[in-house]
């Protein structure tokens, strides 16, 4: 039963990734404008442009380019960067661990604080604490992560010297040193998403706390903590899981912007510099990798969902 469910979900994931690849192709090839001309700039000669078009395979008919593109994506061959002197796969493999670590740290932070605070806020509904939490989380969800990043740099790093300002430490430094450099960025990325998690957790808990079985558990005389954790949250956690799936996209997007603020050599930094230099193969590769991570995380969440909630039918 479970196995066929997993297989079916894997099939669904492949279908979405096929469409994702198609969207990526459409963005780069169908939108008017000649990538080769844009990449080389206004000073390029017609011959240079034609040569680059051949190198990038842009001279072939569009359907052929599309098939070719799909074939190389399936084989994880993402082409060569125009400026970096390395393959896109190599460039991404070099930078993806940082982006993933940053996203994971931010997700951990946002969840570890967001879920308990959301539960507490729901349990103490209407109290001063609840109102304060609601106000703060609403405000935090309205702040751009890059602005939080800059403010954190200014106060925590420059003025109070608590944490490193920017960068990623020397390349041969241990994992712990790297993580130290990622603390501020993780806060900047995590904060707006933590706010979302708090608000969603609170709503899910409120839904559950109104159920009859919670009243029954209370009437039985169970300790309030037991009722909240064992009875209420157990049933709200699948909803919380769904929320986590939804914030993954926000976390990855936040990481992309925040890397630029802190000068971290991750996928985000790679994409932004690729956009400024019109390095299309790199942009395409990054789009595929980031959306691939998103789709994968959501697959895992769907599977966990089925494992946690017996009511979910395979």
């Amino acid at each position, binding site marked *: 039963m479970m196995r066929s469910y997993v297989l079916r979900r894997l099939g669904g994931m492949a279908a979405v990734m096929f469409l994702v690849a198609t969207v990526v192709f459409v963005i780069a090839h169908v939108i008017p404008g000649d990538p080769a001309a844009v990449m080389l700039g206004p000073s390029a000669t017609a011959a240079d442009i034609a040569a680059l078009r051949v190198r990038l395979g842009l001279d072939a008919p569009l359907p052929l380019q599309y098939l070719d593109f799909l074939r190389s994506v399936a084989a994880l061959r993402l082409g060569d960067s125009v400026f970096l002197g390395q393959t896109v796969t190599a460039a991404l493999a070099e930078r993806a661990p940082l982006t993933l670590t940053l996203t994971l740290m931010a997700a951990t932070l946002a969840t570890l604080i967001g879920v308990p605070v959301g539960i507490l806020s729901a349990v103490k509904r209407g109290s001063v604490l609840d109102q304060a939490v609601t106000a703060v989380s609403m405000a935090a969800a*309205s702040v*751009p992560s890059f602005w939080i990043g800059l403010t954190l740099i200014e106060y925590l790093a420059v003025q109070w010297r608590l944490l490193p300002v920017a960068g990623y430490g020397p390349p041969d430094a241990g994992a712990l040193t790297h993580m130290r450099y990622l603390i501020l960025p993780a806060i900047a990325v995590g904060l707006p998403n933590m706010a979302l998690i708090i608000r969603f957790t609170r709503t899910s808990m409120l839904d559950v706390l109104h159920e009859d079985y919670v009243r029954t558990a209370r009437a039985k005389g169970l300790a309030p903590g037991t009722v909240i954790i064992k009875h209420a949250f157990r049933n709200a956690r699948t*909803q919380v899981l769904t929320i986590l799936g939804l914030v993954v996209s926000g976390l990855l997007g936040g990481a992309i912007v925040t890397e630029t603020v802190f000068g971290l050599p991750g996928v985000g930094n790679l994409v932004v510099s690729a956009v400024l230099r019109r390095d299309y193969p790199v942009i395409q590769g990054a789009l595929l990798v980031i959306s691939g991570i998103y789709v994968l995380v959501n697959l895992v969440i769907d599977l966990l969902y089925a494992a946690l909630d017996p009511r979910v039918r395979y």
Partner: protein
Amino acid sequence: MRHSIRGFGTSVSATLAAAAPRHVSPARLLLRRLVRRKLVLLSLLVLALVFAAAAAAPWVAPYAPQRMDILHRLAAPSALHWFGSDDFGRDVLSRCLWGARTSLTVGLLVVVIAGLAGTALGVAAGYLRRLDGVLMRVTDAMMAFPDILLAIALMAALGASAANVVIALGVVYTPRVARVARGGTLVLRELQFVEAAEALGAGGRRIMLVHLLPNLLSALLVQCTFLFAASILTEAGLSFLGAGVPPTVPTWGNMIAAAQQYMDRAQWLILAPGLCIVLTVLALQVVGDGLRDALDPKLRRIR
């Protein structure tokens, strides 16, 4: 995604209930409910102020946004420059006001484009079964990219300009509106009044435009408020990264990007445009929440 459909059903039935007392117009009733909550009222006032400031920027801004004053570079806030001046001696307050023009115009146009396109696609997907599978898989694929990344990629293909930011963000947010419109349509089309209209021989186009669309408006209005907030944030992010509105145009994101290198000497350069973004987005979110509560009695009771 799993919740959108259920949450939607309640707000649709709420609209039907809200329309019941005949003597008060629904819009009036909605406004009365909105204003009753002080925070929502305050946010509406903030929004009115921001919109007014943006509209009146050419007349109320103390200086021209590009006017340089080399003698007063990086001046701290004072009576001369209320929010200080930047590295070219340009007045930060004036640039914030002009920035509001750009940000709000971009945000509004994105809401119009994504709102119209998303509604059309969503209602069509929800009502015409044949289209549903394809359209929803495509929105799935587009929503697999973080907003900002898809916007960056589109901007790379389109080229940096304010008009292209509108197009890019319109494309990015259309699937989100389509999702909501589809969810609502799926609920509504099972209701009896749609069945009755079908039995009377109404065609697909008439059902969608006359029977489904009006009943979706309240939910779409809420969605569009949040969309407005999201587009302002994403536009600021794009400008900040240098992939949005060209850096010479004063926008809140551009101002923060330019201020980065003077952060240690002139915090007001980052503070002023940042607060503009936060206040506007926060006010929009509060109004969006207020709208949703006002349109949905069930949610209000739970709170």
